[in-house]
């Protein structure tokens, strides 16, 4: 009965089609733009509602929207629709990663060597402890344990940037959360490239892939990034600084890099991150240094997180995997907070601990990296990478809240400051 009702619009349409010659064939799939706007509105509504009623970070709402309407629960966003929306998610993640790369100020490490120590200990401890946990306690093979560590060792740049932006946070804790996130991401990308080779070596009989694939990415991403950054700086140099035209050039170059990376199967997040670093470090005349992406680009982030939420494999959830994911997150938290407690570069211990809490998010890049590796050997990868994916799924909800808590406790957010008595 219901099935017949569902077919009614199609039957009606097809009967009209014979007489109304202007009508197109019955649309089999929702148009990309319509899907884009639906995801945007639904994500926005849930995010805003949670933010207004429960003071939760909006990102949680976007992820929840994706999870609820995605294939795992209601199924309103189908797997095909997810694939269809992927270019938009890539563009959103790309722009965010470029922004993180632009903010990565390596010269700060030169001016404050203690920071180098704390960031190196965060990277090393996070990778080693997660690797040991996955290998010894969960029982993954060395290659997949390394893949799990590479995917989950860093904080989530997109979540951190959005949370900082949303809370209007400003100060040392904020700046250090961004720095640690950016450097941690760089390290995880390097680990990711190495792990690709290891996974190929373990599962492919042809050794060529074990060498060629990591090299393809290690050379491809910087090359695309270098070309796009050169293009952006070259054209922007002819335009007035901070002009709207420069903003267009920046976005157009970024989208070009996203497109080429997709064409050549080079990870978008890595390419755009490197592009951001190059834009900041090669910009000797401050051509694009002060040019900011328009506020509207955060709308793209809504799409990104709705899609990430819809991509989470909740249908494969088991209590054992859930417990293992929780264990991984505890180990990861110990590593990060421990590293920051041990050394944090001229910041008092309570604030260092807040930095450690602020870098807990785990999100889009981890999910995308996990799928990138899993897609190589789908029959094994999907189950082998269930651990990082579920860890990311839990952190999609907890991560933004933890990051916000750290920013608020540090007194660097607008609302947190107001509670201290008139510091608005």
């Amino acid at each position: 009965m219901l099935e017949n009702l569902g077919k009614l619009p199609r039957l009606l349409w097809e009967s009209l089609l014979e007489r109304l010659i202007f009508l197109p064939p019955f649309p089999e799939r929702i148009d990309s733009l319509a899907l884009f706007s639906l995801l945007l509105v639904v994500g926005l509504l849930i995010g805003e509602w949670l933010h207004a009623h429960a003071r939760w970070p909006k990102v949680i709402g976007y992820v929840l929207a994706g999870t609820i309407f995605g294939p795992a629960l209601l199924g309103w966003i189908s797997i095909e629709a997810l694939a269809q929306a992927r270019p938009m998610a890539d563009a959103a993640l790309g722009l965010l990663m470029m922004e993180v790369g632009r903010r990565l100020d390596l010269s700060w490490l030169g001016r404050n060597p203690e920071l180098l120590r704390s960031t190196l200990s965060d990277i090393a401890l996070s990778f080693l402890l997660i690797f040991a946990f996955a290998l010894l306690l969960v029982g993954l093979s060395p290659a997949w344990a390394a893949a799990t560590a590479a995917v989950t060792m860093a904080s989530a740049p997109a979540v951190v940037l959005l949370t900082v932006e949303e809370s209007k946070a400003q100060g040392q804790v904020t700046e250090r959360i961004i720095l640690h996130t950016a450097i941690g991401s760089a390290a995880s990308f390097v680990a990711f490239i190495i792990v690709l080779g290891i996974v190929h070596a373990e599962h492919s009989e042809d050794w060529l892939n074990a060498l060629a694939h990591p090299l393809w990415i290690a050379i491809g991403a910087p090359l695309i990034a270098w070309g796009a950054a050169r293009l952006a700086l070259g054209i922007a140099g002819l335009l007035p600084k901070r002009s709207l035209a420069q903003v267009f050039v920046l976005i157009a170059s970024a989208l070009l890099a996203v497109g080429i990376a997709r064409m050549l199967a080079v990870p978008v997040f890595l390419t755009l991150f490197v592009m951001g670093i190059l834009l900041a470090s090669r910009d000797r005349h401050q051509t694009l240094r002060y040019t900011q992406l328009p506020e509207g680009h955060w709308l793209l982030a809504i799409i990104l997180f709705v899609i990430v939420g819809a991509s989470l494999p909740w249908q494969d959830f088991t209590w054992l995997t859930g417990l293992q994911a929780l264990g991984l997150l505890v180990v990861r938290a110990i590593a990060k907070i421990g590293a920051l407690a041990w050394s944090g570069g001229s910041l008092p211990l309570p604030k260092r601990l807040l930095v450690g809490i602020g870098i807990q998010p785990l999100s889009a890049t981890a999910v995308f990296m996990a799928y990138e590796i899993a897609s190589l050997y789908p029959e094994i990868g999907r189950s082998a990478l269930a651990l990082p994916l579920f860890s990311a799924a839990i952190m999609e909800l907890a991560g933004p809240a933890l990051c916000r808590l750290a920013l608020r406790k540090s007194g660097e957010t607008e609302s947190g400051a107001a509670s201290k008595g008139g510091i608005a």
Partner: protein
Amino acid sequence: MSQPLSEFTHSAALTLGVELELQLVSRRDFDLTRAATDLIDSLQYDERFGEIKLEITESMIEISTMPQATVDGIASDLAGLRETLGMHCARHNIAVCGGGTHPFHRWPERRICPGERFDNLYQRYGYLAKQFTVFGQHIHVGCTSADDAIWLTQALGVYVPAFIALSAASPFVDGVDTFFQSARLNAVSAFPLSGQCPPLADWAEFIRHFSFLQACGIATSIKDLYWDVRPKPEFGTVEIRVCDTPLSIEQASSLAALAQSLSRWLLRTRPVLHTGLQAHVARYNKFQACRYGMAAMISDPVALCQRPLRESLLELLETLSEDARELGCEHWLKALLPIVSNDAGDAAWLRARHLAQGNLNDVVRETAERLLTQPTHKSWEHS
């Protein structure tokens, strides 16, 4: 809660102290940033050159020298404070710069520093407290007696336009050229107790006046008086408060030299003061100096005419050269001459850099570099 006025601490004559309010800016875009409390909390510094303190908003920091007998001593302290602050700012990835206003910051984004005093100011003055994110140089001149301090406060009032024009370093506000040389003082003028010290004959009269203000509920402590020049009983000084923070500490030292030489000359020659008449033209003259700098026309309420400020300043510098020589600060005073004769002041420099760069972010970047750059061997002496 009203605080009784403290006893006037007698200082050695003409000792100096300088306070500079400096801007804390992000190294990413050179906008003001929230950094002061983090910076102070992690400061490892033994205060050998003076203090580094919080100011009203988180984007400001104040440095103040030790009391010094000479301008060379002030310059040495300021150099030490600059080095200390520069080093700590670098560790926190922030930059520090001079100038009376930040050229393009948005005042609603400013955060008031934690602390009871700052919180009270915010509660009392509302948004004015955030708009008070402007940066000035205060110069203290030591006085041997309370009566001398009141007399000097009145006498220095006439020279307020000279200090404004020489220090002017705030032509940009909210990202636009204000056409003012010093737009900073417009933010100060909004406060109810800003302006000139009223005509007062001596310390006893000042005590009566202050008690009157307290009884009317207008002022609780002397810190509430935002006068252009005011006595500071606990330091035993007269404080000149109208200068913009210059773009370099060398310029700040030169302004201290002017304050010291001028005070010596005034106390030595004791010219007749027409405080009642001066009160009628003081606001107009101050506006002229803020708006036009050296091109200001200053009203003389005694001679009933106007005189170009540039002309009277050239005469004044000539007059003070003997006192400056006696005080050992003639080389610092001479460094002010190009500003008077060639319009080579900080406001002109900021405008020139804006013209060259085409944006204000780069202007602030260069301003930050300028503060931390040590001049080549006594180049200021002969410039």
